[in-house]
């Protein structure tokens, strides 16, 4: 039985659309929960809530800066999940954080805390396939969809195993590198999407290096949609507030809808 994340993305695909998943750093500013609602209202199909970690090795300067600011203002995994519980975003939510946050809390306890907060999915970018066992056991039991990353460096055989274990969607890493906006979309974004589409019926989304509505359209062409993170978080850092961030997300939505 697919979970809420997978259902939302399949519904978008089944109606001929391209999916938009948007990342928002949890605890960044006093109005971040309003930003999450604005992002949902602007047409995001799923929203990733970043739970800041002190050593985010998969993230570039923008999300690092957002992490530091959120942590500096006292955000913790508990405080963020407490706010998420009362959020009522109107779109399925997935938490993105690093493995030590879950490990330190205790895997069962962390999975249960996500479920209790109304979170549907979880992404742990430093937890590769071989190390997922204990976590996915806990996540499956709690009904949490564990979304795995699939990288351009993986063989088809490896990508197939990643797809088989992923829930919700498969997160295709669009380039060799960490999160962040680039001036041009990497050619590898379309390549990884096409490779993954041949291997799975799960929704295939491409993220990392998708920074503009034009790049989103290009990146979504070969797959089922995109994940946009740093471009949105940069808006939050710039103080655009819920309205400004919602406006940016609307432009991504409109571009993907071809209007």
């Amino acid at each position, binding site marked *: 039985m697919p979970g809420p994340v997978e259902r939302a993305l399949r519904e978008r695909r089944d109606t001929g659309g391209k999916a938009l998943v948007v990342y928002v750093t949890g605890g960044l500013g006093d109005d971040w929960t309003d930003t999450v609602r604005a992002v949902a209202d602007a047409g995001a199909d799923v929203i990733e809530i970043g739970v800041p970690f*002190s050593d985010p090795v998969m993230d*570039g300067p923008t999300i690092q800066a957002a992490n530091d600011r959120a942590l500096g203002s006292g955000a913790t995994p508990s405080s963020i999940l407490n706010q998420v519980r009362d959020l009522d975003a109107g779109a399925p939510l997935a938490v993105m954080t690093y493995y*030590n946050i*879950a490990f*330190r809390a205790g895997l069962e306890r962390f999975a249960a805390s996500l479920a209790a907060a109304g979170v549907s999915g979880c992404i742990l970018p430093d937890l*590769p396939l071989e190390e997922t066992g204990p976590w996915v056991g806990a996540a499956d039991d709690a009904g949490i969809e564990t979304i795995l990353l699939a*990288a351009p460096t993986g063989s088809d055989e490896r990508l197939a195993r990643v797809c088989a274990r992923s829930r919700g969607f498969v997160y295709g890493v669009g380039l060799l590198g960490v999160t962040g906006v680039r001036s041009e979309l990497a050619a590898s974004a379309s390549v990884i999407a096409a490779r993954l589409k041949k291997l799975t019926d799960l929704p295939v989304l491409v993220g990392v290096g998708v920074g503009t509505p034009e790049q989103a359209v290009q990146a979504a062409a070969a797959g089922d949609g995109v994940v946009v993170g740093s471009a949105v978080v940069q808006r939050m850092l710039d103080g655009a507030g819920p309205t400004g961030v919602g406006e940016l997300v609307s432009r991504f939505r409109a571009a993907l809808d071809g209007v």
Partner: protein
Amino acid sequence: MRLSDPTPEGRFGEFGGRYVPETLVPACEGLETAFRAAWADPGFRSRLDGLLADYAGRPSPMTECENLSAELGCRLLLKREDLNHTGSHKINNVLGQALLAQRMGKTRLVAETGAGQHGVATATAAALLDMECCVYMGEVDIRRQELNVFRMQLLGAEVKTAMSGSRTLKDAINEAMRDWVATVEESHYCLGSVMGPHPYPWMVRTFHEVLGHEAREQSEAILGTTPDVVTACVGGGSNAIGIFSGFVDADTELVGVEPAGGAAVGRGVPGVVHGSQSYLMQDEFGQVLEAESISAGLDYPGVGPEHSHLAAIGRARYENVTDAEVVEAFQLLSRTEGIIPALEPAHALAWVSRDRASLAGRSVVLNLSGRGDKDVAQMMDILGGKRA
């Protein structure tokens, strides 16, 4: 008998593993395969042994400290890794990894450095083997180790400043890993300690076992038996695992010495950062704490997973010493033996000095993992030109 190899998953007991972004998993697997093949290849081994002997100056001597032994009341022997080319034990690992990278067809070495010793060693190997080299160093460390920054630049390396977090070794590792994620096709990450994702903890240990084997033979020749105690400083723990490897089967007490402000084994709890599960200084939510140590090389909140395992099974124990005790030990060795140690091994000596009562009459082999030239300017600031 030797230290045991990790499981196929890279575990030493419950510790270790391979917690890296998916992008890097094939690179780690490829590295493991290449390392196994190279280590079994007599051609690779003889090339490495040749460089260790004729370029790095191995074997390093063992010095019996008669003056200091008399003062401390124990029999103190120093394994002189400070006399290696580039001034520390780091060259053992770097020559091995650089040769391996070349064999794998990589053209660029990426490294992190704390005190600069590993960065200098990597830049040296890159110069020797005509490879590109990029070293990440925290802004705080660049300030306190500017001599080593210039050394790396002289050797042709690019030194990049890590500005995030505590701006020390931990953050330099983050930046090096981010670089590697982006450049994995042409770059080899030349990790400087027995930490990180499998196969690094095991591979780096293997490259340092040479110093442990030498120390075993040398100490037995001097003492006529195995030493009572072997001690070394522990940040990530490469010099310590190197010397422990020579004595793990002997009736010898193994003592790692951590800085009080970075005592991962002493004060940490299990966690996962930088690719492996190990003891880690962290808060209740899993945020990694910033270490605070006088020594840039030990200014790290984690520790190599095999040390966590040795501590958990009780084969080694881990003490910690304060910055003030280290400053005393730094001067003590300089004054009594005419050997200026690096601040890192001065930690091990600080423990020997503090615990001299319990060590009375016993033989102690201390791994003098590096020389103190790099620390002289910092010590001038600390001591204000006065000598104790």
